[in-house]
């Protein structure tokens, strides 16, 4: 194979439709006779529902139907895919019955002739509440005396997740120094620019349901909806059209998805629901929300002996699709990219009167990286060791891979030191430290923050993820030689229409323009899992690659037959198949395709056609890694920590398209920096959401950043034939601790050893105001 396209920064095939405004997102789907749904939501965080009166809503002209909890109770609870030993299955229904447990919980749904009437009618649904005591603080919620969210459970503790590797007691006894700190990973809102949305159309005579949904996982949604709505799965079709961002929050099946399907079935007319931004912040899953008490035991020279983590994961009011699994990933990655011989991880998952948490970009790994990268800096500060050197000292060496960690996973491949060195060199770390010293003498506070991260991608072996870790790909060479790729993953910005075309074009010796990738439609593509956890190319792309290999073998056989050679002597050139060794004998790619479909000159025993489907089951996860360097300067007047330089060196294994990889890193950095500096979902003590609009929930803007300086090291993964590791979450995971480490470093002269996120100007201003630098 000649690599003409893999590795090249090709601009995207997706973009012409997107930049011209001609693409189709869910809200752009319009069907004849379509109705609009609006949802009446709970105003209380915890209350008994005494009465729901829909009569005024029903009477509003243009209203077609109003449903409440009892009517859709038969659809059953919304399933949670994750399972842990002794876990309390705190599930919700499509609509609340008897009681509500968070602000924004759906209580009734209205369908009407247009969206304005639907919204009006939703406001006319009258609900009598009997408010109940609210618990929003997870530590209070753990107290047996606290209000219980579910009467059927003895307490609010949904699960305990505990493991110990090595002997932590001994490690801590032997330690020269023990550092400890409490790290809070605040609650975040994913804020996809396109809110969620669903359209459903039901054809009664055929019992056939078609659903357009802004989802990352169309096949999973199809199975769940089919079961919930009693439509056979093979008569249910889910289409993910253009999806305006996912970041994990569009993996879940939400109440509104089921309601739209139910109402389409009930009314016999298509129904559309598009989430408003306020609904989005209140009732789309949140991320993070974990409190980690971390202790690290070290020798004087900085060698890590052991670590203990006590973690509290605030799960919110119910278990959404992956809710309980996400925080447990923090345990698996808690050792970060260091040798931690002994690890004790003790986590409790707690129910509170807030929206559920689930997978948000990084999903459990940012929390792990944050806690280990922060505690490493705390240790470095205490031991007076340079943060770069304490990291270097504890890295496993490249020869030690695959490396089994005390977190219980096996890192596939890495060279952590190479990425660290590249980042230090690129940032001119020594020069920065010199400059910092000079500035401090002038009373100016600049900080340098490092973060060396490793993360877990390419989910994954099915046995390790509770099932469904594979991905499927079909490749069909059409009669004209054009190639259709049908993938089970469901990209929504990642650019796999382009990267898959690059892979396929190089394998076949054709042009990327001749390859079209079809995705996100259960009626068109093979059964798949979907796009999340940086698995699209490393798992989905591998399935496609394997299907291409099957077709290449078949085409070689046909070419050998036509060229009077043998298949093992045939190779693919550009636009043709040829007999190896300058024989001069070749046949055009398209001629082989014609023979395959014409089926007259096929070798004996060869089936006509050129189509192959492969399922790829990875043998392990992949573990991308890297080092980020962040430089902040503190504005003495306002306390604002201004990022003045950001260097990111990431290793995601082999790269198909560097343009796409850089784009993923840029976006990830901004989301991670957003957590460090700005973002936080805030509920008051009554469970009222105080950050319910984009006015109050601050996502980063263009002027918050300098130009990021990116570089890569390349350590191929042995887990898949393309050597890919995945890159969707790396930027988010690596950046958050780098920023906080930089701010703490800047404030070190004030005796600061830790500062909680989000580090807004006010927090820093209070520190500057209240203390004197030493």
């Amino acid at each position, binding site marked *: 194979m000649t690599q003409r396209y893999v590795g090249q920064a090709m601009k995207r095939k997706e973009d012409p439709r997107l930049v011209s405004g001609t693409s189709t997102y869910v809200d752009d789907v319009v069907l004849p006779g379509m109705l609009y749904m609006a949802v009446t939501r709970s105003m209380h965080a915890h209350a008994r529902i005494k009465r729901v009166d829909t009569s005024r809503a029903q009477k509003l002209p243009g209203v077609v139907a109003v449903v409440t909890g009892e009517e859709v109770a038969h659809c059953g609870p919304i399933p949670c895919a994750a399972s842990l030993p002794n876990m309390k299955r705190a599930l919700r229904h499509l609509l609340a019955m008897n009681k509500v447990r968070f602000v924004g919980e759906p209580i009734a749904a209205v369908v009407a002739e247009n969206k304005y009437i639907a919204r009006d009618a939703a406001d006319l649904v009258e609900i009598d509440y009997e408010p109940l005591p609210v618990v929003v603080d997870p530590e209070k919620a753990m107290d047996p005396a606290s209000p219980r969210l579910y009467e059927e459970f003895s307490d609010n503790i949904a699960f305990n997740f505990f493991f110990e590797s090595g002997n932590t007691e001994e490690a801590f006894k032997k330690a020269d120094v023990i550092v400890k700190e409490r790290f809070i990973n605040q609650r975040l809102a994913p804020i996809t620019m396109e809110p969620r949305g669903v359209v459903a159309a039901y054809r009664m005579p055929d019992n056939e349901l078609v659903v357009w949904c802004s989802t990352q996982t169309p096949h999973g949604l199809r199975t769940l909806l089919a079961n919930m709505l009693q439509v056979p799965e093979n008569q249910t079709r889910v289409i993910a059209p253009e999806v305006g961002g996912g970041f994990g929050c569009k993996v879940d099946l939400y109440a509104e998805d089921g309601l739209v399907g139910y109402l389409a079935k009930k009314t016999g007319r298509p129904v559309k629901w598009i989430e408003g931004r306020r609904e989005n912040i209140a009732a789309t899953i949140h991320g993070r929300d974990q409190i980690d008490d971390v202790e690290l035991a070290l020798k004087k020279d900085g060698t890590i002996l052991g670590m203990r983590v006590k973690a509290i994961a605030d799960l919110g009011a119910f278990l959404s699709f992956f809710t309980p699994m996400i925080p447990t990933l923090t345990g698996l990655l808690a050792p970060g990219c260091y040798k931690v011989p002994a690890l004790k991880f003790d986590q409790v998952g707690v129910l509170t009167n807030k929206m559920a948490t689930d997978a948000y970009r990084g999903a459990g790994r940012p929390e792990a990286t944050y806690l280990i990268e922060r505690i490493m800096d705390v240790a470095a500060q205490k031991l007076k060791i340079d943060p770069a050197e304490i990291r270097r000292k504890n890295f496993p060496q490249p020869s030690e891979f695959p490396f089994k960690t005390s977190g219980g996973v096996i890192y596939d491949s890495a060279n952590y030191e190479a990425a660290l060195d590249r980042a230090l060199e690129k940032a001119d770390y020594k020069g920065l430290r010199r400059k910092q010293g000079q500035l401090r003498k002038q009373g100016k506070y600049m900080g340098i923050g490092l973060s060396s991260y490793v993360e877990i991608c390419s989910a994954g072996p099915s046995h390790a993820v509770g099932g469904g870790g594979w991905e499927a790909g079909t490749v069909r060479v059409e009669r004209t030689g054009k190639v259709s790729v049908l993938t089970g993953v469901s990209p929504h910005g990642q650019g796999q229409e382009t990267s898959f075309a690059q892979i396929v074009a190089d394998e076949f010796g054709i042009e990327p323009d001749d390859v079209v990738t079809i995705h996100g439609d259960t009626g068109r593509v093979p059964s798949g899992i979907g796009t999340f956890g940086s698995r699209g190319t490393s798992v989905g792309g591998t399935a496609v690659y394997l299907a291409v290999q099957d077709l290449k073998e078949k085409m070689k056989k046909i070419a050998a037959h036509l060229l009077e050679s043998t298949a093992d002597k045939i190779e693919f050139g550009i636009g043709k198949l040829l007999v190896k060794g300058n024989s001069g004998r070749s046949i055009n790619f398209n001629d082989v395709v014609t023979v395959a479909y014409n089926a007259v000159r096929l070798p004996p025993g060869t089936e006509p056609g050129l189509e192959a489907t492969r399922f790829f089951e990875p043998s392990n996860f992949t573990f991308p890694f890297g080092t980020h360097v962040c430089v902040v300067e503190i504005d003495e007047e306002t306390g604002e920590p201004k990022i003045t330089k950001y260097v990111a060196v990431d290793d995601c294994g082999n790269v198909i398209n560097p*343009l796409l990889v850089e784009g993923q890193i840029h976006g990830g950095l901004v989301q991670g920096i957003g957590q460090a500096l700005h973002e936080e979902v805030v509920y008051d003590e009554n469970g009222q959401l105080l950050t319910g609009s984009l006015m109050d929930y601050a996502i980063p803007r*263009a002027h918050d950043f300098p130009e990021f300086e990116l570089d890569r090291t390349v350590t191929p993964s042995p887990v898949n034939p393309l050597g890919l590791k995945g890159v969707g979450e790396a930027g988010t995971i690596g950046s958050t601790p780098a920023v906080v480490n930089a701010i703490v470093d800047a404030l070190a002269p004030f005796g600061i050893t830790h500062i909680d996120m989000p580090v807004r100007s006010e927090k820093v201003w209070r520190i500057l105001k209240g203390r004197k630098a030493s």
Partner: protein
Amino acid sequence: MHVKIKINGKIYERDVEPRLLLTHFIRDVAGLTGTHIGCETSICGACTVLANGLAVKSCTMFAVQSDGADVVTIEGMAKDGQLHPLQEGFWEEHGLQCGYCTPGMIMCSHQLLSRNASPSETEIREALGGNLCRCTGYQNIVKAVQYASRKLRLAPKVAAGD
């Protein structure tokens, strides 16, 4: 109420409810769905269009306020099958991922370049302060605007609505 709004050179005349938002008029009445709605509260900028040459968030205007206006949406940017330099810039520089914020970004950038043909990086970042993107980290959006700025200076007659 009766309104007459020109969108991308074509006149749309309808009786509408006084509360109908311009963005819904564009999307639902004119059927031009390239203008996206991201927050309904004029913060995210996804719904940005040009109204009488000014970039406005079309969720913040009522259709009745736009009576008689000359509106340009993303669909009006390409001419004779040729992408506008801004559209080209976003494509060339990978200035988009999911694409949802892109039409608003392009319309807002259009206003910037019509006022300032050679904006600095800082000026671009400041000008896009009212447009949110959750995918790109903004860096390639800045490059896309710089690309268009260069191209428009070479061929200054290319502009929306011309």
